[in-house]
């Protein structure tokens, strides 16, 4: 059966056409801006997205894609792409001190090295242009402390006779000049980077503006030799050579300049994770606790959630709605707030828990108590979610099966084990795996509650409650500033690890599902 074009057109639903039309119109509007900015990636993305949408929604074939495309595009743009970008920085030294490009770093080192010439005078400055707008070239009118006026441009200074200008009677700043437009403060500011890079050369240095109406004489103390690719300190004549994304003194003193730049480092970040003794040492201990923490968090929250759901799952149980509304409260609070509240309740001397129970437990200060505290708080934060899920899954257990089992004389426990549990588990398994993955990387609760502590005697790298993510966060960000390259490499490795564990769990669930479901 082949449909004529007009029939095919008639089958198109109008909402879809309108939707695609809107997207196309949107693309048409944005593309000129993108072209203006030479953002060719942007243009490509914009065209590709429109084309895909048009293809999917205007042709009859791709029915599944119609339902998947919007979510997938968002997923690719805001989850997959950032992950890819992150992984790509794992192969660089990107981080504090290495954020700029080399060109930027060189320019910044030079700019930072400008010093005012000792004992040099300051000028009162007026900026002026020939034309009435600020787009063209501009010059400086400089009044020195004696009231002498000079005009400076990129070629140097030229004296200006007093007759050609009028000056402010107090400061001596030039107010009008023959044949020139003196710019207002706002116009001067509007010159932006052009003003910042403008310098009037003098014999030994240059004159630069500072603020709106002042200029000073300065000179560089660092100069870059582009052909030799070296930086030279003109005061000490130390030559700095490029080495690993920064400038290192060639005299062997090991001195480096503060500003470095971003370079590719290959697998260095990965190898340093795998070979660095400081990282490897506590790794196994941290990994074991991470897995234990994630599994126990899932088990306790699911266990309590299920228990409560079972308890509430009785037709004559009064006040079920009230119970479940109140039990939901821990979930309704922003988690970081609850965590702060818990952390103050755990305080050994002033905390609520010890006061209530009259105990002297060092909740956050001794290893096992701290681990317990973390799990307890995480249980509090997570059980309402599991409760909601379980409450639903329970009611989905086929009543007939239960009745049949009861008639056969099975004890309530037996019914629960062989009829209720399997159904609930199958339904909950994907969530449990997701919850495992979430807790594996549950940075916030550890960070806000214990920050990894307490620390075993004589070790300040890995605490007793540190999970991989909090431990590596400290490694990557707690040393000399943020080392994004290292952090990305570690994240990638953690991702692989938790992904593998989850994937295995996942495969097993599917087998389970196939056994029970059909």
């Amino acid at each position, binding site marked *: 059966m082949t449909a004529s074009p007009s029939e095919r057109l008639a089958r198109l639903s109008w909402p879809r056409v309108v939707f695609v039309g809107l997207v196309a119109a949107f693309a048409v509007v*944005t593309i000129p801006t*993108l072209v203006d900015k030479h*953002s060719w990636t*942007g243009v490509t993305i914009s065209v590709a997205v429109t084309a895909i949408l048009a293809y999917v929604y205007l042709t009859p074939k791709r029915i*599944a*894609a*119609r*339902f*998947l495309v*919007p*979510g997938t595009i*968002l*997923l690719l*743009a*805001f*989850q997959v792409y*950032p*992950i890819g970008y*992150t992984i790509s920085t794992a192969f660089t030294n990107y981080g504090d001190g290495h954020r700029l490009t080399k060109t930027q770093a060189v320019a910044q080192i030079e700019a930072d090295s400008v010093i005012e010439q000792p004992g040099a005078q300051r000028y009162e400055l007026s900026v002026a242009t020939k034309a009435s707008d600020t787009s063209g070239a501009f010059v400086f009118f400089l009044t020195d402390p004696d009231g002498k006026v000079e005009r400076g441009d990129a070629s140097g200074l030229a004296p200006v006779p007093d007759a050609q200008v009028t000056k402010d009677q107090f400061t001596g700043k030039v107010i009008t000049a023959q044949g020139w437009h003196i710019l207002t403060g706002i116009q001067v500011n509007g010159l932006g980077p052009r003003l910042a890079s403008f310098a009037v050369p003098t014999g030994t240095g240059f004159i630069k503006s500072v603020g709106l109406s002042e200029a000073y004489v300065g000179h560089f103390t660092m100069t870059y030799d582009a052909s030799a690719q070296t930086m030279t300190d003109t005061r000490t004549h130390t030559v700095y050579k490029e080495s690993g994304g920064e400038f290192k003194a060639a005299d062997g003193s090991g001195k480096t300049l503060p500003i470095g730049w971003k370079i590719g480092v290959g697998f260095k970040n990965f190898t340093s994770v795998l070979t660095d003794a400081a990282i490897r040492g506590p790794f196994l201990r941290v990994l074991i606790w991470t897995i234990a923490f994630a599994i126990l968090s899932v088990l306790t929250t699911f266990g*309590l959630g299920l228990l*409560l759901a079972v*308890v509430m799952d009785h037709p004559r*149980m009064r006040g079920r709605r009230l119970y479940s*509304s109140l*039990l*939901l*409260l821990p*979930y*309704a*609070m*922003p988690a*970081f*707030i*609850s965590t*702060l*509240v*818990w952390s*103050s*309740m755990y305080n050994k001397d*002033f*905390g609520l828990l010890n006061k*209530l129970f009259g105990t002297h437990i060092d909740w956050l200060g001794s290893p096992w108590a701290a681990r317990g505290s973390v799990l307890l708080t995480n249980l509090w934060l997570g059980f309402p*979610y599991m409760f*909601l*899920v379980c*409450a*639903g*899954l329970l009611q989905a257990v086929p009543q007939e099966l239960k009745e049949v089992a009861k008639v056969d004389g099975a004890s309530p426990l037996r019914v629960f084990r062989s009829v209720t549990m399997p159904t609930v588990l199958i*339904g909950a398994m*994907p*969530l449990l*795996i*997701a919850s495992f993955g979430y807790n*594996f*990387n549950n*940075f916030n609760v550890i960070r806000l509650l214990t920050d990894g502590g307490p620390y075993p005697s004589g070790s300040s790298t890995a605490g007793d409650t540190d999970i991989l*993510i909090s431990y590596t966060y400290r490694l990557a960000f707690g040393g000399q500033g943020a080392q*994004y390259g290292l952090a990305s490499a570690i994240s990638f490795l*953690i*991702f692989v690890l938790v992904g593998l564990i989850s994937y295995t769990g996942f495969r097993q669930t599917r087998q389970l599902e196939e056994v029970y479901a059909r």
Partner: protein
Amino acid sequence: MMKDRLWWRHLIGLAALVFALVPILFLVSAALNPVGTLSTTSLIPTGASLSNFSKLFHDPNSPYVRWYVNTLVICGVSAVLNVLIGVSGAYAFSRLRFRGRRPGLTGILLVQMFPNFISLTALYLTFISIGDVLPAAGLNTSLGLILVYLGGAMGVNTWLLKGYLDTIPKELDEAARIDGATENQVFFRVILPLAVPMLVVVGLFSFVSFLNEILLAGVFLTDTTHKTLAVGLYGLVSGNHNTDYGEFAAGSLLAGVPVVLIYLYLQKYLVKGLTAGAVKG
């Protein structure tokens, strides 16, 4: 029938309530305490005063009402769209057969396992570029933040919804197809109405997760007037010194109110929704 005894159920229920409510009572007590800090407050309020609440509404540094509105808008819009996108995906995964279905399902779950705070920088840079072209969706805009949140719409929730759709008998949509309904009509007229309860559950879950979200929101929203409750409240306690816990506690308590209200309102759907959940056809 054997007469079930209910007292043990109430016993467990009450024990759970104590566990759930003690930290919250503590927060209430801190909110009512006019000079309190979290650590010196006891469970029973030492002084009952609403001064912290009034401070909250009159403090020009923390436009609380504004934050509240922002939060409701951002979380509400994101939750609704999140559900729509999630259920579309779930529908495709549940009802339609196509290449890459299994790997796709596994893939969207695995993507969620990446430690997300580390990809913040990438998102930040992405939205700077977006903001250059489309200022309305760049940094410091609710729209931008909503877009990021929607990136996760095809995630765990799709799984939850797919599980639910699997339980709706296939005969229903097949009958509709035989009657000449298009795939769209099956989705909108047959499946969606049946799935409403589960949509409500997922909507609530999404709403709560966006309400709690602070990492992305903290980076995206720097203008005081654009902030959400979580970010604004975090600002109240994250400064180094002079933390005003009373005001913070009061603000935190009020932040929990919408979730409870939504829950109370939707409870009838929730019970039913979860009832039908995961029934194998």
